[in-house]
């Protein structure tokens, strides 16, 4: 595992850059555990101060220190992304492995449902949930709903790998040895799909954090909970750009782009690691 990591850092510039970017953001977000102020309180400092040695990222019109505000926002958003990714990974692994290994009508039914989920435009659905739940729509509920929509692409990917594994020698050995389906899937097949799970994990985080930003910017989430999206929501509602409080928008946007680029680079470089053909191309063979 460490050797793989070392090779990736050494030979894959995308992976190294991605790791650095995500690393910076994660460290920044973890600082929120040591925050001297409660990020949900307002008018704690002088509003509208530009970045200075005292307020590194300035303060906003709501009298919040942007450094600690953003640190908490990124922590919440990353936790949110990880929650959605973990939950939807569980669904996609279960569906993908079952569909690929059991086959037959189980496969057909699961893939039919899969295709339905692919076709439903998620954004109107999320807006609908907000319309119904209003401020009861907290991060966890939102994460649950998104997890229900975030699995079908990856389930299909895992299924295709599982289809290949089904006909391999070791699966037959396991079947003859009397292993149960559950045991075969968990102990024999799961390790093979783990690399895909990791790479889609990053992509899924990108997707869910992006959607959360979108919803929050429109005010369609609990706007009192600091996240990447709600920071932008408040900046917008105070017309930060127009009144000249540019740091309220520019700094979060820079951090968001860093996060997204970093996660994306990690995802594609891991993809490349999984697909030996693209690795060969890189070596010039």
């Amino acid at each position: 595992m460490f050797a793989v990591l070392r090779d990736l850092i050494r030979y894959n510039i995308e992976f190294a850059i991605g790791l650095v970017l995500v690393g910076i953001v994660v460290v920044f977000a973890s600082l929120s555990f040591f925050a001297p102020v409660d990020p949900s309180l307002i008018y704690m400092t002088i509003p509208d101060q530009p970045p200075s040695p005292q307020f590194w990222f300035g303060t906003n019109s709501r009298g919040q220190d942007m450094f600690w505000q953003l640190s908490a926002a990124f922590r919440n958003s990353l936790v949110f992304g990880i929650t959605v990714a973990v939950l939807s990974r569980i669904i996609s692994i279960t569906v993908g492995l079952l569909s690929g290994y059991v086959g037959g009508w189980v496969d057909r039914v699961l893939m039919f449902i899969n295709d339905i989920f692919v076709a439903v435009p998620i954004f109107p659905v999320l807006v609908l949930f907000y319309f119904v739940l209003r401020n009861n729509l907290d991060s966890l509920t939102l994460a649950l709903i998104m997890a229900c929509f975030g699995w079908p692409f990856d389930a299909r990917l895992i299924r295709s790998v599982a289809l290949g594994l089904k006909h391999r020698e070791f699966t037959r050995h396991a079947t003859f040895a009397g292993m149960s389906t559950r045991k075969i899937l968990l102990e024999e097949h799961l390790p093979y799909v783990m690399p895909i799970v990791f790479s889609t994990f990053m992509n899924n985080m990108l997707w869910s954090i992006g959607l959360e930003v979108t919803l929050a910017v429109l005010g369609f989430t609990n706007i009192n909970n600091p996240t990447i999206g709600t920071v932008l929501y408040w900046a917008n509602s105070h017309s930060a750009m127009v009144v000249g409080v540019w740091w309220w928008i520019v700094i979060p946007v820079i951090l968001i782009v860093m996060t997204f680029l970093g996660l994306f680079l990690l995802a594609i470089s891991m993809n490349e690691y999984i697909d030996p053909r693209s690795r060969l191309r890189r070596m010039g063979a």
Partner: protein
Amino acid sequence: MNGYLWFVGKRALQLLAVVFFGVSATFFVTHLSPISPVEAALGRMTARSNFAPEAIAAMREALTEMYGVNEPLLSQYVNFWMRLFRGDLGPSLLAFPTPAMDLVMRAMPWTVGLLVLSTIITFIVGNILGGLAGYSQNNKFFKAFGIISMGLQPIPYYIVAFILLIIFGFLWPVLPISGGFAMNVTPGWTWPFISSVLQHAILPSMSLVLVGFGGWFLGMRALVSNVVTEDYVTYAELAGVRRHTIVSGYVMRNALVPQLTALAMTLGGVFSGTVITEQVFNYPGLGSLLIDAVNAGDYSLVLAVSTISVAAVAIAIFVVDLLYPLLDPRVRAE
């Protein structure tokens, strides 16, 4: 031919299932909500002027009848489907008494136009450039393109739209940043109107194109770099088949087959993107309508927009799927 009918039948069944589940979900989510559409409507209508209590009671009765909310859930559900087939989802509160369906139909062309325009541009440009990049892998220009699209691809629609708004709205104000056309032109098939519509569509579609482009570029580049190693490409090169024939008819043509499937699968996401873009640029499409409806608590309108958008995306996917056998003769014969 038989294979094609089989394919169409399977897809049509899927379309019906998607529409059925999507619309049902929309119905149940809204009807299990604590918000009463009747009280919401009453509150809105009585907010500005004083009504006699009898008048309010009469209105409440009329509204209850109109929404049919005093019936059991199941019969409401059946009624909902019947009204949907008649294209009547009740009046909108936002623009009472205009039927919600009328508002949806008015907004529809804007969204469809924006979606079709940007999807076609993105798909064609992304695939052509991605294909060329995959075919000539050591070209510096395409390498730079790859890095740029890699950087753009993961950024959320909202951020891209917002950055465009800042650049073209504040830093270098050359393009209209709000609305579907200028206020001083009258709608019609006149040049000033059309050019105004096109100008107003530039920024919204640009934000969709910028986000979507990278995915097609990177996807096509990866596909093509696999297709070029196929025997039929090597053989055609050996036979001295013209280069542009090889690139278009052999390499890209084969790589396009999986890309079309990908197109069908991304339409739902692109629709979500248009909602955001429309909101940022105040574009008079379905997205803006949905957001206004949510903010106004307009029950019928939210229901109408969600239902129609689920159905519309499903139909769009169906249409793209129908094109698939035209690209891949192997599906036709199966």
